[in-house]
């Protein structure tokens, strides 16, 4: 059963990811991204991380991709792009190199950390195995708001800075009237 769920979710993730790259139409690509995010949410549920799954769907599928679609629709770029024009010269092989580097790093991390991952897998309280149904969320809250509170706050400050910066850039005035 676990293998079955994992296979289905992985197929979802991979098909979605390939769709993001190969679909010509920006809206179709964005929808493929939603498929990928859903697959990841299913994988989270299979690992008894229900909270992460919910947040994955609410934040990524529910807000971020909606925002992507919004921009695509409002800016009217909902037509196939000409792939032959390259705005930045030699961006392709740089992107390829960076992608290969990422693959290398991830593989190295998984290979070197496989023992640790196996050990830690037992330490996470499953929301079902325990008597308390909210164990999973309580554990998450405890680590966010006690052990890692500094990182958490820094992240929120970062987000606020990003928002303020965006508003400032969007509302910059050039001469008279709104830019």
């Amino acid at each position, binding site marked *: *059963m*676990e293998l079955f*769920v994992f296979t289905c979710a992985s197929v979802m993730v991979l098909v979605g990811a390939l769709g993001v790259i190969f679909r010509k*139409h920006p*809206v*179709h690509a964005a*929808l493929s991204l*939603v498929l990928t995010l859903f697959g990841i949410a299913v994988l989270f*549920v*299979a690992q*008894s991380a*229900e*909270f992460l*799954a*919910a*947040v994955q*769907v*609410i934040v990524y*599928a*529910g*807000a971020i991709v*909606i*925002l992507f*679609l*919004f921009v695509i*629709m*409002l800016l009217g770029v*909902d037509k196939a792009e000409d792939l032959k024009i390259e705005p930045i010269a030699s961006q392709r092989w740089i992107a390829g190199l960076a992608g290969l580097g990422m693959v290398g790093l991830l593989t190295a991390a998984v290979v070197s950390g496989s023992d640790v991952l196996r050990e830690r897998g037992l330490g996470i309280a*499953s*929301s*079902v*195995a325990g008597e308390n*149904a*909210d164990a*999973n*969320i309580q554990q998450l809250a405890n680590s966010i708001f006690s052990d890692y509170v500094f990182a958490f706050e820094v992240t929120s400050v970062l987000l606020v800075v990003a928002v303020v910066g965006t508003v400032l850039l969007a509302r910059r*005035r050039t001469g008279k*009237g*709104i830019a």
Partner: protein
Amino acid sequence: MISLLAIDPVLKGDLLWTPLLIVILKVLVVFVTGLVATMLMVWFERKVVAGMGNRIGPNKAGPFGLLQTLADGIKLFFKEDLVPDRADPFVFKIAPFLAFVPAFLSFSIIPLGGDFRGDNAGMVTWFGHETRVQLADPSIGVLFTLAISAIAVYGIMLAGWSSGSKYPLLGSVRASAQMVSYEAALGLSLAAVILVSKTLSTSGIVAAQSSIGNWNVVATGVVPFIIFFIAATAELNRPPFDLVEAEQELVGGFNTEYSSIRFSLFYLAEFMNTVTMSALMVTLFFGGPQPIAFGNTVLDIPLLPNGIEGSVWLLLKTLVFLYTYVWLRATLPRFRYDQLMDFGWKILIPASLGWFMLLAAQRLGKNEGWNTIVVTGASVLVLIICYLLLQRAFSVSNKQREAEGSMF
């Protein structure tokens, strides 16, 4: 692999035929209840709006016109299904289902009945198995509803875009902006409920509200409920927030190009969502299937077993909200779009955030044994300062906008 399935207590342990049948029965019951409730809701809305407009309303098909929706549905099924030339065929076809499926999914976590008295916590015994009268009770509970309502945006957004026509696109852009904006307020007022009842699961939230004094609407101090109600109305695109389908401005909104069964799916989803949201509000704030009780005096319906009585109470309480929604539709004029956005971002979100902080301070004070009056005073003071700062920010930005020559 129990972890995936055990969202229902019936499915713990070995998989047997009886639990499986119970679950299938539950799925059927939830699905059919949803469809029938939607059908009746359409009739109810037409009849009540007609009554408020001093008309008669549907009265030909069936007793009191009850079967009017069925007749309309059959008519829609047999109409020609058109796909516009400029539409994106795949997305155009899939969009109605993206609106329809979430509407049903969020119905699955609402406790539809059961006995919450004493230590029962909503458990009933069916065919020798302990279970809940709710399709699923995941540990993330109400977050599931938020996730589903986030997904529901896709149906409307893609429907408008894929029609390949201007007015539907405008309607869908309005809809998605509105739903994403009000979801923040919805989530923040939900957080107040979670804070008070200390659990995310819907059955846990219901079990904690045994009498009127314990109802979350009282325990959270009414404000989160009001915010939740307004945000839910906006999330449902119901009047006075129905800018999505403002006929005078947008022809018919996002579903202009739809016809036949695809159109009826949107229609169904809209009414289904209204029923679900009303039931959810009852669950979160008004004790769900728990009977109305003042302290220890319980208003018990005689002759009915407690498990079934829960469903009756849920139905009665939900009807109040359904009526309120129809009432709002019959009486309130539509918002202007900038008013809608101002209301959501500048009033609802700060108000729900402020109230949430107030409740959190109260909880902390109680846990640490601080003086309640001092805690309340201090937090109110902080809130007033925040409010003044916010007002200052608004006035500064208004002045700058005027200097720039903007209209709003």
